[in-house]
């Protein structure tokens, strides 16, 4: 794990450094290729072609991630990024979600008359940031990656420019999101003031060695606020329903899963690395988790718009994932990772159904519109039912094992109160998901016209989501094992890291240069 002296002395990035950021490189190149092609191709013909290029880019990122998994793990770029099983897990989620969302957008673009060039470009650029977030171990780099991902999603949220709600969604997300990012940055600055470093491992070491100043606590709290906003955890969740309601459905599928997975990766690293010497971290996360679950589920009960309902459900699910954060690292980290993967599969699927059913201008989004869907389009109804059952946590779906692992991790950490709140919330949650299912199968349809047949792109996206959701619910072992294995490869909590922090490298390099100049 310790880098050799040779690495310390390096003045230019080595080949291995580039492999550590291979998925980001692939995504960036394809993002730029999409923009270039958009400029030279005839607009009336280019839309599908650009989507195909973007799709190749996303699959290229999956390939790059698999290649990284074969390559020896370690640090890159002067210990700015760290590739290990943990970051590969999240790289994979981000790249896979990107690919499925691009597939689901293929026909949506035409139906909504959205210009494809910028859309696919921004999705790929956003994925660069999310991917980098999950492997970065330096707070400044994490901040830049967070901004890349945020700016892309702000714009994507307002992509249906003819719709006022879409513009409202974009503006609201932008203003509140910038505010939250400022909180994160302020936290980083305070943490730097308290410990003299922005490297996660150096901060962790510095906090272990001495008594922890108030500044460090404040820094950690600010960072938690900033990241909590991005994952829509409870006191910072107010933006979620409005933004999800107005944003184009494939974009909601994207922004409710990929950036969230990446930010959860950052939170896991920050909380379990930096916060490890602080035994009292529990109560803060405890409160946020309980609030998110309760507020999300109770507010979802009264929603009539399916997109808003799923927005509140997404707040609740952020709460379930945070339950794992309050647990012990050995069981909490794999539980949170598994939950993130399962949630990505089922939520992308649910929003893919919504985006197809919505039609032009996303007109059909209320509970009444979904009435009788079982008769009008049995296939669409069955698919949505699978995702909703998984969101409830019915056995044989990914959602079941996700909840199971999270709650058992919390029980191991003796958080009985939190588990009781969580289980009660799951019961409340079942009510509103079942409401949609009941409407689809038991209510008479408002209009008899059959729904447009599922086109190929959306169909593929749905098929992938269904397969993954059921795979995680039937054979969860492999994914869970990988998550557990990745924990042992994270720096063990409490162990003094034998690494040189970036600023140490920097100081050494400065002396080298001084020597060279003296000659």
């Amino acid at each position, binding site marked *: 794990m310790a880098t050799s002296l040779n690495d310390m002395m390096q*003045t230019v*990035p080595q080949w291995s450094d580039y492999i550590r*950021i291979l998925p*980001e490189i692939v995504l*960036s190149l394809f*993002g*730029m290729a999409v*923009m270039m092609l958009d400029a030279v191709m005839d*607009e*009336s013909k280019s*839309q599908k072609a650009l989507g195909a290029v973007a799709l190749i880019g996303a699959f290229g990122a999956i390939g790059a991630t698999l290649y990284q998994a074969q390559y020896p793990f370690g640090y*890159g*770029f*002067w*210990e*700015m*990024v760290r590739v290990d099983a943990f970051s590969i897990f999240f790289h994979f989620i981000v790249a896979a979600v990107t690919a499925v969302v691009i597939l689901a957008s293929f026909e949506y673009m*035409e139906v909504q*008359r*959205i*210009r494809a060039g*910028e859309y696919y*470009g*921004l999705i790929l*650029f*956003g994925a*660069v*940031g999310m991917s*980098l977030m999950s492997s970065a171990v*330096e707070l*400044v*780099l994490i901040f*830049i*990656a967070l*901004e*890349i991902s945020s*700016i*892309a999603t*702000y*714009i994507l949220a*307002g*992509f*249906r*420019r*003819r719709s006022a709600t879409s513009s409202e969604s974009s503006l609201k997300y932008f203003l509140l999101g910038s505010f939250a990012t400022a909180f994160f940055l302020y936290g980083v600055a305070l943490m730097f003031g308290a410990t003299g470093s922005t490297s996660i491992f150096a901060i962790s070491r510095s906090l272990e060695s001495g008594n922890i100043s108030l500044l460090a606590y404040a820094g950690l709290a600010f960072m938690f606020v900033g990241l909590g906003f991005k994952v829509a955890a409870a006191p910072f969740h107010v933006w979620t329903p409005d933004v999800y309601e107005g944003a184009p459905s494939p974009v909601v599928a994207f922004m409710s899963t990929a950036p969230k997975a990446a930010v959860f990766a950052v939170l896991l690293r920050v909380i379990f690395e930096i916060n490890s010497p602080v035994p009292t971290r529990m109560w803060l996360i405890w409160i946020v988790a309980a609030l998110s679950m309760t507020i999300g589920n109770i507010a979802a009960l009264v929603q009539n718009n399916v997109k808003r309902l799923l927005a509140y459900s997404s707040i609740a699910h952020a709460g379930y994932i945070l339950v794992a954060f309050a647990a012990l690292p050995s069981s909490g980290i794999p539980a949170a990772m598994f939950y993130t993967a399962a949630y990505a599969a089922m939520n992308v699927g649910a929003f893919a159904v919504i985006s197809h059913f919505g039609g032009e201008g996303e007109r059909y989004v209320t509970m009444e519109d979904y009435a009788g869907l079982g008769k009008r389009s049995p296939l669409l109804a069955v698919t949505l039912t699978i995702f909703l059952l998984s969101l409830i946590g019915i056995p044989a779906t990914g959602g079941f094992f996700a909840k199971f692992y999270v709650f058992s991790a919390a029980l191991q950490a003796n958080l009985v109160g939190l588990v009781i709140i969580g289980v009660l919330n799951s019961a409340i949650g079942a009510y509103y998901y079942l409401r949609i299912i009941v409407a689809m199968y038991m209510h008479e349809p408002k209009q008899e016209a059959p729904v447009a047949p599922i086109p190929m792109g959306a169909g593929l996206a749905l098929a992938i989501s269904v397969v993954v959701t059921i795979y995680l619910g039937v054979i969860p072992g492999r994914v869970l094992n990988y998550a557990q294995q990745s924990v042992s490869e994270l720096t063990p909590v409490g162990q003094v890291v034998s690494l040189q922090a*970036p*600023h140490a*490298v*920097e100081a050494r*390099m*400065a002396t080298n*240069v001084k020597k060279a100049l003296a000659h």
Partner: protein
Amino acid sequence: MNVIAFYIAAAIAVLTTVLVITRKNAVQALLYLAVSLISVAVIFYDLGAPFMAALEVIIYAGSIIVLFIFVVMMLNLGKRATEAESKLLHARMWIGPIILAGILIAELAYLLAQGNTRVGAAHVIPPRDVGLALYRPYLLGVEISSMLLMGALVGAYHLGWHKQRKPETQDANREHATSPDAGRGPVRTGSGRTVGAP
């Protein structure tokens, strides 16, 4: 590091920032913002980071704020704007920022004249160290910032984009209307905005 100088500059920074968000007149708020940024630059200088202080002045106070002020002053065309602009010449508008900036100049002159203030700072960071940090450990950060700018650029392009309607291709455009703006109404001459745009 001169502690008194630090507190004076810090107080001015806080005061002007509060004034920025409370002033109703945009130009006046921007003048205060410029002073706020300059006071931060003075703090940087006092802390032993003269290069950062220079960057702060050149990039923020120098280019960004001046751009803001130009845009704000040029946006409001017409009679009302001319009246508003003549108000800018009132002493009431600029006396506050001028006084605060004067204090900062005096402070900076004092720090420069004293010369040895840097002895108190932990250590002075010369530009070379900044460059080394940027192109060695933070290389990836610098390069990935370009992706951030790229994303923002694409976003700005998308928000500012509207269908170019040349007379001869107008019908062709309408036929395969793939743009969100198609069929939205004519472009107002000379304004560069579609009707109904905010």
